[in-house]
């Protein structure tokens, strides 16, 4: 559904250089530290920034050249941008009615009501959680085949986060061919939602892996100095020196469980992945 090939974009000293794919019907996660280039990737896919070189194709067409009709098939929730805060949800509903041919007004109103979102209050008076929910519901309101969600759960408490994730899961169940690109700082959100994960660091993709593999096959080895010297390092991705020895991040934890009895092996997760891949040596 989306193909990013050798996308290069310079901002002063920063250089983004990435390639990635968002396949049909899958949820793809994009992770990385602040300033890694996630937003630039998203903006390039949405045609909001022009690549210095490379190609960003959406629905088989250059991202910047999508027609308004084709853009109706994209739902977008951005963390730092939305409808004017001076509008109410009632205003937004009326605007969406005229903006999208496939806007499901009654469904949208019902969802907003079920989430406790008032229609007569200015968006500027919404709480952070209410704003986030409204942004996600707007993105889902017109049955788009491609959803781009930039930090949809950022700054929310666990309850609000789960509610938003549930809304997205329900949408996915009803729209099986829908593809989602989602960025988040909260690893548990991505672990429960994404089929595959791209990790971006200093403008480069440093890892692309299926989420199940990260959780099932990746692991963190805690190794003392003496054992580290004897350790087979062929499956070690990153190593970090600690007080007691080394922490080694591996993509084959079973290999070490089988061959090094007594070695402390912790299950891999996205938090560890970020910490090790961007901080280890």
């Amino acid at each position, binding site marked *: 559904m989306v193909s990013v090939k050798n996308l290069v974009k310079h901002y002063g000293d920063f250089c983004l250089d990435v390639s990635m794919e968002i396949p049909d019907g899958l949820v793809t996660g994009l992770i990385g530290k602040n300033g890694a280039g996630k937003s630039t990737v998203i903006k390039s896919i949405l045609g909001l920034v022009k690549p210095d070189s490379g190609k960003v194709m959406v629905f088989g067409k250059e991202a910047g050249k999508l027609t308004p009709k084709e*853009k109706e098939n994209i739902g977008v929730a951005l963390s730092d941008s939305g409808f004017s805060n001076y509008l109410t949800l009632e205003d937004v509903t009326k605007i969406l009615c*005229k*903006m999208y041919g496939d806007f499901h007004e009654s469904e949208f109103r019902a969802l907003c009501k079920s989430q406790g979102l008032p229609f007569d209050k200015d968006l500027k008076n919404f709480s952070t959680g209410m704003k986030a929910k409204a942004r996600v519901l707007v993105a889902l309101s017109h049955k788009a085949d491609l959803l781009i969600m930039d930090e949809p759960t950022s700054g929310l408490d666990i309850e609000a986060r789960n509610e938003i994730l549930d809304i997205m899961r329900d949408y996915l169940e009803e729209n099986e061919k829908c593809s989602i690109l989602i960025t988040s700082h909260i690893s548990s959100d991505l672990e429960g939602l994404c089929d595959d994960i791209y990790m971006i660091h200093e403008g480069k993709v440093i890892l692309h892996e299926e989420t199940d593999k990260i959780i099932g096959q990746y692991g963190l080895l805690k190794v003392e100095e003496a054992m580290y010297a004897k350790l087979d390092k062929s499956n070690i991705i990153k190593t970090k020196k600690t007080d007691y020895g080394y922490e080694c991040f591996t993509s084959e934890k079973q290999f070490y469980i089988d061959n090094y009895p007594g070695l402390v092996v912790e299950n891999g997760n996205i938090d560890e992945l970020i910490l090790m891949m961007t901080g280890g040596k």
Partner: protein
Amino acid sequence: MAGLVEKDIRLLLKRKETIIIFLAISFLLGFTTDGNFVISYLTILCTIFTVSTISYDEFDNGYTFLMTLPIDCKTYVAEKYAFCIGSGFIAWIFAVIFFLVTGVVKGDAINLSEDMMMAVVFIPVYIIMLCVMIPIQLKYGGEKSRIVLLVLWGIIALIGFLGAKVLAGLHISIDGLVKILDQIPEIVFGILGIAITVVIVVISFVCSRKIMEKKEY
């Protein structure tokens, strides 16, 4: 485009209290001032209000999201021109009716052809004003555009002043020029006015479109 118009109307109505205050002022002006000042006052006021919807779009990174909606730069710019010029025209019609009604109520002697001629002249004036304001607002944003517009009006005033000085230096009388212009038939003036306005609208629209297409959000 219908969605954008809906958005702009709803944004405009957010300032209904201010609009009511200005309408009340124009009501007072209509009864206390002579001439058709109220027509220019109301039309310019509407122009300023409608152009301010660009500031609302820009505020809080608004453009980033706006440009993900099913619109493109050309549609956005076309809607802004259509909305601003259309709203200005509605304000102009309202102002003309208001002017005539207050004139009748006050018992003024209304010279319909002369007053209407003055009122009609104001249509290309407000459209040209919009053609200057919209691209500047799009290029420089809400804050900077105010300074740019002030500088621009200053430059225009300076050119007028210097022009008058140059004409005086060449011993050309401005009154003489006005007399010559007066001899041109009104129909020629009208056609010329429409043609110049259309050309300015087209140039301004193309500039605005290029400004928006060049931007990154």
